[in-house]
């Protein structure tokens, strides 16, 4: 069963300099109980995708959102997150669909204690009174393994380390037992040993609660060990989608191939001398205001042909579970189950 099915999502910003297509025609699904990772670099549109799904884009932005985000709630109803009336969306947000962000210092309110912030969510969505909400907040802090939780309950975010704050964020997000957790670069700002703790915690919580996770990151090491399915984004579009092992074993899109090839750890082949040069993708991503005429990746692609400058390739099925957006990868005849 798919917990979330995104179909042809687009988010355009109408700016003074022109129309910026931050997210263009993005489609993917997140299975119940599984983790889907969206991988991309700067300008890929991965963060805007998650903000669009949560309807958290700034209200002042002149945004044009189209497409569908079909979410199956606890009652088994299918709701389109993009067209829900705001009061219903607010009832879902922080409740069935929760989000954690990259910078825990800026996403936790500095003038409220961590206990009060977790309690706020419980009081809003579960109707608990202050005492009961704080008691549950304490249980949440213990669940995310914060030592001396009873004391921390009454502390402010600035009194906690980065790793602790991220645990508080997770406790806050998990308080109402979401079925979908959106994690936008949750460990990027953390030290390596703390990152390992947080990732292990998230995996444990997923096993316990059966929630789905949409994991947004640029770190391929994290993707390799914490994702079930992967969607690679480039310049606002999905360029490849596959289950994690096939993606790493046989990347189909030249961008994915390049991304994996340029990792320093890939350069180290045991028994052979260290290569003098790493593989590098030449150039940089084009400005969203002046996209290339055809495929967005074509200017940087070693395998580009004339055809690539003529039109944006479609995202096609290349096998039962895989898709790629590249003229070089043949589409397969795949019968879709109803």
């Amino acid at each position, binding site marked *: 069963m798919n917990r979330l099915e995104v179909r042809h999502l687009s988010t355009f910003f109408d700016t003074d300099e022109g129309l910026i297509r931050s997210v263009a025609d993005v489609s993917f699904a997140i299975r119940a109980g599984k983790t889907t990772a969206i991988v991309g670099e700067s300008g890929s549109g991965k963060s805007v995708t998650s903000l669009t799904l949560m309807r958290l884009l700034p209200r002042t932005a002149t945004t044009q959102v189209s497409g569908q985000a079909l979410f199956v709630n606890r009652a088994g109803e299918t709701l389109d997150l993009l067209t829900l009336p705001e009061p219903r969306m607010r009832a879902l947000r922080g409740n069935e669909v929760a989000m954690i962000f990259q910078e825990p210092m800026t996403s936790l309110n500095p003038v409220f204690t961590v206990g009060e912030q977790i309690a706020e969510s419980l009081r809003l969505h579960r109707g608990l009174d202050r005492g009961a909400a704080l008691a549950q907040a304490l249980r949440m802090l213990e669940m995310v393994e914060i030592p001396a939780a009873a004391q921390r309950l009454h502390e402010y975010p600035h009194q906690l380390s980065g790793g602790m704050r991220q645990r508080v964020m997770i406790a806050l997000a998990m308080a109402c037992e979401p079925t979908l957790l959106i994690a936008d670069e949750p460990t990027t700002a953390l030290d*390596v040993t703390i990152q*390992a703790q947080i990732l292990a915690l998230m995996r444990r919580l997923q096993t316990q609660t059966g929630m789905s996770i949409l994991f947004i990151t640029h770190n391929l090491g994290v993707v390799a060990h914490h994702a079930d399915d992967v969607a690679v984004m480039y310049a606002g579009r999905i360029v490849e989608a596959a289950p994690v*092992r096939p993606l790493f074993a046989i990347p189909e899109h030249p961008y994915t191939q390049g991304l994996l090839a340029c990792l320093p750890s890939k350069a180290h082949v045991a028994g052979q001398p260290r290569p003098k040069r790493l593989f590098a993708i030449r150039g940089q991503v084009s400005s969203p205001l002046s996209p290339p005429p055809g495929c967005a990746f074509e200017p940087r692609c070693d395998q580009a042909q004339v055809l690539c400058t003529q039109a944006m390739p479609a995202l096609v099925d290349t096998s039962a579970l895989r898709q790629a957006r590249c003229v070089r990868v043949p589409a397969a005849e795949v019968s879709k189950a109803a």
Partner: protein
Amino acid sequence: MQATPTNAAAQVPLIEVRHIKRYFGAKDKPVRAVDDVSFAIRRGETLGLVGESGSGKSTIGRTVLRLLECTAGQVLYRGEDIAALSNQHMRKLRSKLQIIFQDPYASLNPKMRISAILGEALATHGLHQGKGEQDKRIAELLETVGLRPELASRFPHEFSGGQRQRIGVARALAVEPEFIVADEPLSALDVSIQSQVINLLADLRERLNLTMLFISHDLDVVEYLCDRVVVLYLGRVMEVAPTAELFERPLHPYTQALLAASPKPDPLIENVAVPLKGDIPSPMAPPSGCVFRTRCPQAIDACAQTLPPLDEISPGRFSACIRKDLLIAAAA
């Protein structure tokens, strides 16, 4: 090619730090950012400085260049204590010792064109004087780092992060240094841009015979670029080893945990390591004895009482851990 140095000169490391300490803040309860660190860097070598928050790696980088003064200890350049140098002498020396910063957005003056930024470096050290000479050198520098010389008339905000970092490299190279401190030069860059800058640094290092102190938390990059590695935790050295040996067979429990915690981008490699518990302690209140003991899976009572000395376990391999029994068990 340089003339072959005499034997005596060849023995003296280019850069050496001896028992340096750098404390910040109150005298009674200071932040012990760097607490007794010693290492040497030979001419032509790239030494990696690895650690997490509070390890002291960035502070060490700045102390080596005398951008910060040591609270104690010595920094030697070719055997000479640079703290003893006059301001005038130090200024001359600075053309030999340069730095590339982490944040390509903060380290370039937004109000100066690239030509002015690079020109300032040249003018400060009286190099390539005269507009014609200077312009020629600036064009050369930009080409060296893979940027078109016409871009010299632009402002930093007109460049991407990767390009700005290249400009930072150009600025460091402008004054023909012998030694460069690279303080997390890749952290702010996308993965696909990182490999471009890594290649650039490796090329330049070879062409210009540069000596480097490479500060990073990214172990994969350190493994690729560095000859030897110093592993730091809470201001102290945990382990020193040649790169290949460190990654193949880390001796210190902290190094082992650090390596295990970095996920390899290969789903087929099992990630079975148990993450370290707890947080990094505050450098204002470091644990007694071994500073790592509060999170160390191998800690015993004695670890709280003894400050483990940095022992040479085998030639070139140092580890600060009293549990020699673990090394014997591992070798068995």
